[in-house]
């Protein structure tokens, strides 16, 4: 019996994903874990955050007592507007999304399939179906990244051959940041492009339920 590899914390995952965001990008961060990426944008890198409820240039939560219940993000949490921000209505906001004007979105996932299918909006069954803007984001944003734990709490892989939950989009995911690895979607399935320190490719492969290969370039290997 081997023990599960020790992966990154949520903060470390957010910091790892933040490292790959290009200066000057317009980015939409999904509610929950992806939101944390905002705290780790490297110094000197200016990233404009979009929130689909009508704000470009979203800043962090306000100090106590300085919030406005009508200045919120898509998760309905109070935020701030940075210098250079703009407000707009929903049709413009989703024109930015659907029209391919955003460089990147980072979303959570229930499952990602080896062909890039994403399931992240419904667990099916008795839950109240709620889709929000997820389907619009994956259909329109230039690059779609996912940030998720590699497995569920009970150890079930979230990177799978094909999704069992209802799909958010077909073949839409470009890259996945997990606690164990950075995984691209390639023509033949999952491609590991970076590993968390102390985690081996074989360990990642054993916890992945779809075709996976080691695609780390020799330059990246340490």
């Amino acid at each position, binding site marked *: 019996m081997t023990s599960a590899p020790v992966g990154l914390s949520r903060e470390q995952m957010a910091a790892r994903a933040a490292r790959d965001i290009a200066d000057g990008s317009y980015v939409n961060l999904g509610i929950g874990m992806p939101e944390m990426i905002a705290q780790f944008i490297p110094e000197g890198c200016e990233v404009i955050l979009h*929130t*689909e*409820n*009508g*704000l470009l240039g979203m800043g962090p939560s306000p100090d106590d007592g300085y919030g*406005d*219940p*009508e*200045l*919120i993000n898509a998760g*309905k949490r109070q935020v701030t*507007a940075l210098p250079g921000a703009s*407000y*707009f*209505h*929903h*049709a413009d*906001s*989703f024109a930015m*999304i*659907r029209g391919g004007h955003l460089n990147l979105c980072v979303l959570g996932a229930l499952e990602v399939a080896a062909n890039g299918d994403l399931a992240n909006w419904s667990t099916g069954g*008795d839950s*109240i*179906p*709620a*889709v*929000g*803007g*997820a*389907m*619009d984001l994956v*259909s*329109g944003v230039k690059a779609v990244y996912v940030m998720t734990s590699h497995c569920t709490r009970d150890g079930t892989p979230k990177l799978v051959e094909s999704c069992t939950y*209802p*799909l*958010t*989009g*077909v073949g839409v995911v470009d890259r996945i940041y997990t606690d164990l690895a950075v995984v691209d979607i390639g023509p033949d399935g999952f491609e590991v492009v970076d590993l968390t320190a102390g985690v081996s490719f074989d360990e990642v492969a054993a916890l992945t339920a779809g075709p996976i290969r080691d695609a780390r370039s020799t330059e990246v290997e340490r």
Partner: protein
Amino acid sequence: MIDKRVADPEQAVAGVADGATVMIGGFGEAGSPIELIHALIDHGATDLTVVNNNTGSGEVGLAALIRAGSVAKMICSYPRSTNSTVFPDLYRSGRIELELVPQGTLAERIRAGGAGIPGFYTPTAVGTELAEGREQREFNGRGHVLEHALTADLALIKARVADLHGNLLYNRTARNFSPLMAMAATTTVVQAAEVVSPGEIDPEAVVTPGIFVDRVVHVGSPAHESDLVARGVTYP
């Protein structure tokens, strides 16, 4: 002389019929016209179809309208809230209908309705269960779903400033669906925290031109949904 003011929220929602479709601005509590929604509850119209991104929180505003039994159907993208069981309870017991629409598609359907476009094709939701049974067509090698425009009998809108012509400014992210809904409804009713004379809003800054607005009611200190929920207020 054009003066779209009415005396109070009761007059603002007068005339709405049973079975009407009502668009209600707001994303969560941002832009939610609580005073107008409460006037609609008092009015007593039933069997309404309501278009809003969400289904309200607590037991005030939209959640109160649903709880009052006024709503037969919700058209929305995200009918979940951390602090309201009103919609989920009715939905699970089969007493309210839900049309779930991706958020950007919802916005564009409303915009199209106001712009005289009966339908459009979008790539959103292709290959998902929300596109099942829908007319689809390929453009540039990519699948698209036909979506139909949405219009309404009544739109309830919250603005920060209105002039007597109905030109509107909003407050920050309270804008969201409101400019689209104002275009898409036969009668658009606006509650504004400040009502000014024509000319006092810079024409360059007008967000919703007055042509889309029928009635303006002054609500000087609008309630915030989160305040009401935190204080345990229920309506009525």
